[in-house]
Each structure stands twice: as structure tokens, then as C-alpha cells.
């Protein structure tokens, strides 16, 4: 669509003046407004996560199950790690015993 010679829009557009200079500290104000909005967005996510948690743990059974599962996982991991450590330590002590009574322990000849 082209603007005809006698189109009223042409006249209006001709009157439209764009200010040559931006308002003082325009850029700074733009960045400030962006920064002001960002924490608001973050707070929104945090609050919605908290809201989600509230919904999940609204039922006591779910909260209890959650804590039970974590405690069971802690016990299992602690026991497994303890057993591994105990076995490794016992193997070192066994090797130390053999070393204390065998002059050829680790010898080339």
C-alpha cells in the first residue's frame, strides 16, 4: 500500500518530529529498570518453588516418607562406606603383619 499525494496520512507523517537528542541519562534509566525487574522475576521463581514444596509436604505422610527415605539412604551410604574403609584398613593391617614377620616381603630375590 503506497501513500498517495493527497493522503491525509502523508500530511500527518510530515508533521511528526523525532527529538534529535535522548532525554538525559536515558541509557542508565533503561538499565536500571531492567535490573529492577530481574530480582522480581527471581523472587517469583523462589516463591513458586516454596509454594510447590508447601503443596508437596502438605500431607504428613509425604513429609514422613521423604525424611524416612533420606535417613535410609544416609544409613546405607554410611554403612557401605564404613565397610569399604574397614576392609581396606584390615587389608593394610594384614599386610603389615606379614611384613613384620617375613624378611622377603616385597623382595625382588
Amino acid at each position, binding site marked *: 500500500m503506497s501513500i498517495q499525494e493527497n493522503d491525509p496520512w502523508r500530511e500527518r507523517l510530515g508533521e511528526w518530529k523525532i527529538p534529535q537528542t535522548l532525554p538525559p541519562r536515558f541509557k542508565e534509566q533503561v538499565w536500571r529498570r531492567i535490573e529492577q525487574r530481574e530480582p522480581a522475576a527471581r523472587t517469583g521463581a523462589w516463591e513458586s518453588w516454596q509454594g510447590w514444596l508447601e503443596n508437596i509436604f502438605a500431607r504428613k505422610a509425604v513429609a514422613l516418607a521423604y525424611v524416612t527415605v533420606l535417613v535410609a539412604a544416609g544409613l546405607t551410604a554410611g554403612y557401605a562406606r*564404613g565397610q569399604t574403609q574397614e576392609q581396606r584398613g584390615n587389608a593394610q593391617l594384614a599386610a603389615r603383619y606379614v611384613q613384620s614377620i617375613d624378611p622377603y616381603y616385597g623382595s625382588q630375590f
Partner: protein
Amino acid sequence: MRRGLTIVCCGLAAAALAYGAIYFSATAGLRAERRADAPELLWLKQEFKLGDAEFQRISELHAGYLPKCQEMCGRIAARNEELRELLARTNTVTPEIERKLAEVAALRAECQRNMLEHFYAVSRAMPPEEGRRYLDWIQRQTVQGGQTSAATDHEMHQMQ
């Protein structure tokens, strides 16, 4: 509003507490052994289920054997050094090397005989079944060729 977060934190804290409690409980024996003067003997006591009197007797046997073992270590080190020097001087098997090899072999045989005597004495001081288990294990570790610590660990668990 903070109830959910509190439950999350409580769950994590309870898991950490459970982990720490069971870990320290499972490794308590090992820590006690390591604090002892001769942790390897304390390990022997626990591994072969020795009573206090048996442990006392075995500790005495061990203490009596150690000076002989150290003396033997010194002789072995000296013979090995002599053999190394001879081997470094030539690229053929000289009569001197043959003699030294025979000496080294004789020393090894003597050392193994001493070790076996000690092992038998220790096994006799143990309850019969544990004594047999000890002999089987220690002979495989020493006179029958020796093992790596990983293999030692593996074997001890198979034996239990």
C-alpha cells in the same frame, strides 16, 4: 510458608546424621586397632578370634621372633647386595655368581624354615580351627609366594 523448606532441611540433616553415625560405628573397631601399640597384632587377635591369654602368648612369640627376623633381614640385605654387585660386573654366569646364588637360596631356605617354625608355634597357641586357618593363610602369604594387599583382603573375606 517456610514449613516445606524446613522439612527439606530436616530431611537432609537427618540423612547426614545417619550417614555419620553408621560410618563412625562401622569403623570404630579399625580406629581402636590403629591406636594400639602393635595394630597388626590386634588385627590378628580380632581376625582369628583370640582370647586374652592366647593373644598374650602370641604377642610373646611375636616379640621373641622379631629380633631373629631382623637379624635375618640384615643377612639377606647383605647377600642381595653382594649378588647385585656381581651381576653388575659381568654378563655371564660366573662360578662366583653360582656360589652367591646358592648362598642366597640357602639363606632363603633358612629364613623360610625359621618362619615356618614361628607360624607353627603361633598356630598352636590359637584355637585349633583358627590355627589351621591362620597357617593356611600365612603360608600362602609367605613361603608359597606372597600376595598383594588387595589379594590379601579378598582372600581374608573368602576365608570368613
